[in-house]
């Protein structure tokens, strides 16, 4: 009988070959996990690229930082996890057996060695266990780790290369030169540059809005930034960009209206209307002014007479009201109050004054003037009762109320200045983009327009008139100088026009024409005579256009608008006319229409900046210059206007003109027709 022998421990002989397998397994697992991590990072990067294409990522997010970080970090984390994952010798043995067909020799031998008590029961069992161990060790020594665990790329590792390629394509394909025509590429670049500028403007505006706590402006700035980002990422072509910017302009307009409605004198014209109403009613009261010799119904701008009476005060108050001069109205009411307090006023005059105050109270309309109205009415009632003291006090209160309303109005106007800046910025950008043929031009135009805008800013409230300055590519024109005060000027521009421009003062409210780089011979603008005329601006043309209007532009609202024509002497000093004073049946010289030397479209005054840009590539167009020139065409004026309107419509249909701008052009023609 065989002796009971325990087999020699060949445990080490079994395990040693497995260490190599384990190390190799660990390395493969590390590569696998790192590949998984890198693949996840690549997928995230791809997602980020897609989101970026749709401008869904925040500003601070940088793709060029995120992509390498995501891939490397994913790979690194995966690698660490793979390295930390424990691999037991038994697992390695099982895998080796499976790969090399060892048929559980190693794992069985390991188990028999580790737990001999269960297996070494008798001599026969021990004999077979020893044989098994020897067999296992023999086979274990033949194990080659490279054969047991060959380096075989997992699908994750293989997928990395296609994933990288897809990522690169996603990044590069939209900008691949070969796939984009030069024209589209150029347009994309322009839109992109404009987008960058818009973002920069939005940043500045936002800072300002935050500093002044202007919520509306802040909102507009954010809209500007979003639009800028979309443009920067090339999500729209030039036409779409123009439309979007026009939409933004409209948004700003709406915001301004909203702001005006919410505070102060909702409509600066309220006082003016009240004044006219008052003057009319006072005129009807012959008795009131009967004791004022030589005076008729006071007219705006005329000096008041007989200021030593309350009736005179009333009249002056009417004047102030007509002029929208709230401060003057307040002063007059205070004077009246003082006079009532300090002088003897006859009962009859008190009654007359009371009557006049009644009318003043009735004339004062609008929510902001309600307090003043009540106090004026109370003063009238008091005077009617003979209570001068109360009447005087009520008048002072009325004056105070008017002052407050005025202050509130000024505050609102200050708030709206931010919106003005925003609109100016958008319009400048829009115009630059419209004009630009190359990305560089988009930038250079920007500089020019901004500079001009600055000039216009000096015109006081005529900030918008600065738009006119944008059009001067040649830098010769001086636009925006003659901004029409009080009429948020919409100055049209002629672009290097030969034609006559600067036909201000034809009673077209708020529309001043400009000739730029005119070849004309000295526009001979005369100082306007008409009231509320507009200023035309002569270009300082290369041929020495005199452009008188440059100086006359500062004429303010009361001074007549001056025009200076460039061009072929047709536009020589058109005289500013006040509305209604133009001679009927005017005709216009078909030769004197505005044409630029390049055959481009010279835009009449009254157009917004963006409009002109859209017309740059338009076919040759002509528009009537409403010059009261010496040469009179035999073509009827209306026909010429209609012809020009049709030509413009055709041109606009062929170009990317924003609807808002189309509306402006049509409005312009409407105004021409109406003025006639």
């Amino acid at each position, binding site marked *: *009988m*065989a002796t009971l022998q325990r087999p020699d421990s060949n445990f080490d002989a079994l395990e040693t070959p497995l260490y190599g397998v384990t190390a190799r397994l660990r390395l493969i697992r590390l590569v696998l996990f790192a590949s998984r991590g890198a693949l996840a990072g690549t997928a995230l990067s791809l997602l980020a690229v897609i989101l970026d294409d749709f401008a869904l990522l925040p500003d601070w997010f940088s793709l060029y930082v995120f992509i390498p970080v995501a891939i490397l970090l994913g790979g690194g984390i995966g690698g660490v996890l793979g390295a930390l994952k424990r691999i037991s010798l038994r697992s390695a043995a*099982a*895998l080796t*057996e*499976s790969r090399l067909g060892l*048929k*559980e*020799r190693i*794992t*069985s*031998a390991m*188990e*028999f060695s580790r737990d001999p008590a269960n*297996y070494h029961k008798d*001599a*026969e*069992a021990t*004999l*077979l*266990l020893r*044989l*098994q161990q020897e*067999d*296992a060790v023999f086979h274990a020594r033949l194990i080659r780790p490279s054969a047991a665990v060959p380096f075989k790329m997992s699908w994750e590792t293989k997928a990395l290369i296609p994933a990288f390629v897809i990522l690169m394509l996603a990044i590069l394909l939209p900008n691949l030169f070969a796939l984009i025509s030069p024209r589209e590429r150029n347009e994309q670049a322009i839109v992109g540059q404009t987008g960058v500028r818009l973002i920069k403007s939005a940043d500045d505006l936002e800072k300002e809005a935050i500093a002044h706590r202007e919520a509306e402006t802040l909102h507009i700035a954010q809209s500007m930034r979003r639009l800028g980002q979309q443009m920067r990422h090339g999500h729209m072509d030039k036409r779409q960009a123009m439309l979007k910017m026009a939409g933004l302009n409209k948004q700003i307009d709406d915001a301004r209206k909203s702001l005006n409605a919410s505070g102060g004198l909702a409509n600066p014209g309220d006082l003016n209307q009240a004044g006219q109403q008052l003057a009319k009613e006072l005129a009807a009261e012959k008795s009131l002014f009967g004791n004022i010799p030589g005076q008729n119904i006071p007219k705006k701008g005329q000096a008041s007479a007989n200021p030593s009476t309350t009736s005179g005060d009333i009249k002056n108050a009417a004047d102030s009201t007509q002029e929208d001069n709230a401060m003057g109205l307040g002063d007059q009411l205070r004077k009246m109050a003082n006079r009532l307090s300090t002088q003897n006023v006859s009962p009859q005059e008190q009654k007359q004054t009371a009557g006049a105050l009644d009318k003043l109270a009735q004339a004062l309309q609008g929510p902001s003037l309600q307090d003043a109205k009540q106090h004026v009415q109370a003063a009238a009632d008091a005077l009617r009762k003979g209570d001068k003291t109360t009447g005087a006090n009520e008048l002072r209160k009325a004056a105070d109320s008017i002052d407050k309303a005025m202050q509130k109005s000024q505050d609102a106007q200050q708030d709206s200045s931010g919106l003005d800046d925003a609109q100016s910025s958008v319009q400048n950008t829009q115009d630059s983009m419209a004009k630009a043929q190359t990305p560089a031009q988009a930038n250079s135009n920007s500089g020019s327009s901004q500079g001009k805008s600055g000039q216009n800013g000096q015109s006081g409230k005529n900030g918008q008139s600065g738009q006119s300055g944008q059009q001067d590519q040649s830098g010769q024109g001086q636009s925006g100088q003659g901004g029409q005060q009080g009429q948020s000027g919409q100055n049209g521009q002629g672009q290097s026009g030969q034609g006559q421009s600067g036909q201000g003062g034809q009673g077209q409210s708020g529309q001043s024409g400009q000739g730029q780089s005119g070849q004309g011979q000295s526009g001979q603008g005369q100082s306007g005579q008409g009231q509320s005329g507009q200023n035309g601006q002569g270009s300082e043309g290369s041929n020495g256009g005199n452009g008188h209007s440059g100086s006359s532009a500062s004429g303010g609202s009361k001074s007549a608008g001056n025009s200076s024509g460039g061009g072929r002497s047709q536009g020589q000093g058109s005289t500013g006319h006040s509305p209604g004073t133009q001679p009927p049946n005017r005709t216009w010289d078909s030769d004197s229409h505005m044409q630029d030397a390049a055959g481009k479209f010279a835009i009449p005054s009254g157009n917004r900046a963006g409009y002109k840009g859209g017309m740059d590539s338009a076919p040759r167009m002509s528009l009537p210059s409403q010059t009261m020139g010496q040469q009179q065409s035999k073509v009827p004026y209306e026909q010429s206007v209609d012809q020009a309107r049709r030509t413009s419509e055709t041109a606009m249909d062929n170009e990317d003109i924003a609807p808002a701008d189309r509306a402006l052009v049509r409005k312009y023609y409407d105004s021409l027709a109406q003025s006639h």
Partner: protein
Amino acid sequence: MPLDETSVARFKEDFGRVRAEVGKVIVGQTDIIDGALICLLAEGHVLLEGVPGLGKTLLVRTLSQVLDISYNRIQFTPDLMPADITGTNILAEDPEGRKQFQFQPGPIFASIVLADEINRATPKTQSAMLEAMQEHSVTVAGKMYKLQEPFFVLATQNPIEMDGTYPLPEAQLDRFLFKLIVTTPSLAELSAILDRTTGASVSTAEKVLTSGRILEMRQIAKEVPIASHVREHAVRIVLATHPRSESAPQITNQFVRFGASPRGAQALVRAAKIRALLDGRYNVAYEDIMAVAPAALRHRVILNFEAEAEGITTDSIIREVLNTLSAKLTARAA
């Protein structure tokens, strides 16, 4: 008799010698020969199922010739009585003239018993085999008689002639270690059969193993160690044949009425050990378990009506079970 390395090393050789000798008479059917020999060495019995004329009886007879042990053949018929198998007490007269009952052993008393067409006997007669197969003994008139070792039953049954047959009850089937399906020979095999059997010369097999050596080989086989994870795999296979068990695949749940008994698991391990030795190993591998599983389990799995209606066989159930567990093994190793 003690084991030594030489006897262990000769195991595979002896097995090969028997196979070679049988192969002299039997053409092809190597799986059947191997299966029968495994059953012999694993102390089990084998049920051969096949249509008539495939050489089942010849195989058994040849085996008895190769193994130097006693052989009896019992042709099962419906009128066969249990006593015809086990033997009976007969009235005999001794030399002194006294009459007394004397046990007359039946054909079961042999080392190799061929129960030909076992399903033709009545259940009563079939049951006479139960004790012999399980206990290696018979009891007649209250007296138990041990059967000689090795005791090895090879039963045959015809699957197509069902008239006048009595299908073996599950308890009877469970006593067979393997159920081997004898298939029709291939073209080359059939040609060789014709060549050997229609000529003048008759192939004969020589005796190569004694009963002693068979018992020694049985002992060696029993000592083959099996690791716990391999043993667990055998258990999982058996459990997977049980519907609604944790490891049962869908096909089991759908088509199986009863799974394999613990005897099935025993059969797997015992047969797998011999297969390991035949493969030159001293440990049982998953592969051994799975290789013997169809033969060891196909007659232990009872299908439901749905399976019978859809023509599902136990072999397809076992194949699916093995595939499922094999995939899990591979996944675990990776």
